[in-house]
């Protein structure tokens, strides 16, 4: 078990960061999702040993990262903020960080070069960080996190502010790290960034773990709340006639070129719909649901799915 969080809370003065979280992390890539101020960074910083839990315990590889110096050797952390030691070149920065992490002095420069190469920064590594774009800063931060070959990576918002070309590239590189056997925690508040990276997510909301696990498993939760399904087809009346009596259908509205079905049990409704389509040989040109996407899951989970027009 890489991380064990047990009844852990963290306050800053009177402000609550994380509230009574119990959670375990085994391995692989995990996406840490949640709105701004939900406690993602607090949790990551506690795992990185920057913060001490106010109550409860949090261990990484069985040790407390705040108190146990040695266990931080196995952690690689890339912070959220942009500031670094801008006077240094990327190579110097990563070399220093590698040395502080315990890479032997004669090996540190080589390790830093390898880490920067892994992040696609070989060409720019002799330039000062001051002039870097956001994408290059993110890559440099990631290089500092991996230079000492840690087993456990904590990446706080590594994709924020990165242009699309760089993002595709960075996502690919993070996946490679996970494929090499590292445990990776990536936080983000933009869902689609995480979607391209992993399907294992943890949703943090109001300082608590709201949901965890495979995103598609979590998505099943969505079937608990009403759905609207829009079907565009050649014979909408046939569908309406067939489904009108089903107990899971709440309402059927005809629209131009199709029909909108409101259901209380999406899972059954989709099956029933497919059966009707097949039985009656209806040609469906489009099938969609505004409530059936990860954004909707996210909103549903965070409790306040707002009324849509």
């Amino acid at each position: 078990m890489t991380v064990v969080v047990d009844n852990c809370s963290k306050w800053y003065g009177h402000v609550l960061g994380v509230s009574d979280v119990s959670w375990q992390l085994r391995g692989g890539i995990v996406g840490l999702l949640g709105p701004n101020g939900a406690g993602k960074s607090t949790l990551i910083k506690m795992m990185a040993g920057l913060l001490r839990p106010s109550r409860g315990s949090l261990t990484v590889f069985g040790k407390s990262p705040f108190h146990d110096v040695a266990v931080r050797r196995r952690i690689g952390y890339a912070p959220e903020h942009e500031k670094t030691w801008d006077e240094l070149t990327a190579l110097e920065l990563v070399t220093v960080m590698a040395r502080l992490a315990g890479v032997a002095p004669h090996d540190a420069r080589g390790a830093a070069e390898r880490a920067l190469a892994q992040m696609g920064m070989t060409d720019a590594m002799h330039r000062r960080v001051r002039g870097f774009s956001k994408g290059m800063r993110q890559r440099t931060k990631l290089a500092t996190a991996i230079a000492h070959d840690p087993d456990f990576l904590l990446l706080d918002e590594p994709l924020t502010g990165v242009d699309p070309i760089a993002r595709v590239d960075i996502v690919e590189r993070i996946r490679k790290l996970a494929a090499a056997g590292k445990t990776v925690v990536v936080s983000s508040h933009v869902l689609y960034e995480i979607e391209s990276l992993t399907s294992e997510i943890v949703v943090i909301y109001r300082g608590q773990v709201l949901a965890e696990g495979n995103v598609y498993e979590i998505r099943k939760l969505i079937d608990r709340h009403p759905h609207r399904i829009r079907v565009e087809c050649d014979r909408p009346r046939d569908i309406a006639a067939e489904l009108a009596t089903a107990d899971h259908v709440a309402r059927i509205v005809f629209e131009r070129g199709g029909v909108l079905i409101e259901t209380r049990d999406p899972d059954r409704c989709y099956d029933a719909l497919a059966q009707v389509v097949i039985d009656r040989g209806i040609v469906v040109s489009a099938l969609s649901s505004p409530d059936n996407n990860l954004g909707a899951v996210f909103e549903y989970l965070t409790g306040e799915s707002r009324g849509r027009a």
Partner: protein
Amino acid sequence: MTDDAAVAREPLIVLERLTKRYGTIIALDGVNAIVDGQVIGLLGPNGAGKSTLLKALLGLIPYQGRARVLGLDAAEHGTSIRDRVGYMPEQEAFLAGMNAVEQCTYAGELSGLPRTEAMQRAHAALYYAGLEEKRYQPIDGYSTGMKQRVKLAQALVHDPEILFLDEPTNGLDPRSRDEMLELITELPGRRNCAIVLSTHLLPDVERICDQAVIMHKGRVRFVGTIDELRGARGSTALAIELKADAAQLAEVLTAAGATCAVDSAVTLTVTLPAGSTTQLVFRHARDAGLQVRSIGVHRQTVEAAFLRVIGDESAQVAP
């Protein structure tokens, strides 16, 4: 403002051979473009020349060639343009120790509004941006989302005709992002104000922009509508989403003669064999015990289109 009608007919932005060099670096390389529309996405990777273009349009830097904004020449009428343009910067640009109302009032006054008018509009802009209760608290203690709202409000306060937004949704969670995008989309209708949106989050562009300008290496690579960018012309492929296991459906459909590409664990793109309909999909799905959740015409995402435009060095679309 007697020539309002004349101004209205002029495109928002007209660029002719616009060139800017910093020493040996060419930031803008003879850019020609006519940009008009309501919500315009300005796209490009870092270093494409977007911020240099903005500076030129606001009349802040000298340049070669011509740039006209709202019918005014940027080199000559920089200050009048800046009075009629709102700019929401990407980075924090707050003055220490001020609350949101003071900041916005000050912004309005700096754009030439009388003090009382500026105060009134500051409150209106903050209401609009959704900062009713918090507007008397110091900005230093604001969350990222609230700071973005203040930045939007201060860009709106002086009643601009064009609004330049630099990464307005950066660092926002999905709900705040939705709200911010909604605010932005309502602006052209409610305030009669055109938007130029510069962002790296292409789904945002897809959602709210009607026009796109793509820049790369100091040149404009594309100007046109989002649909033109995506090239929605006559694609026959279908985008299908399942409850689970797209790979399995791909297997059976391929066996049935369709061309399939699995996009993720639950989505795939399918080109059906000639003469068959979605019946084929439904049947095979049911037989394999799979549930179809969505079917639609496969449209290239703006992201893919963007990568194509940037990647294709020769695809320079002249306006």
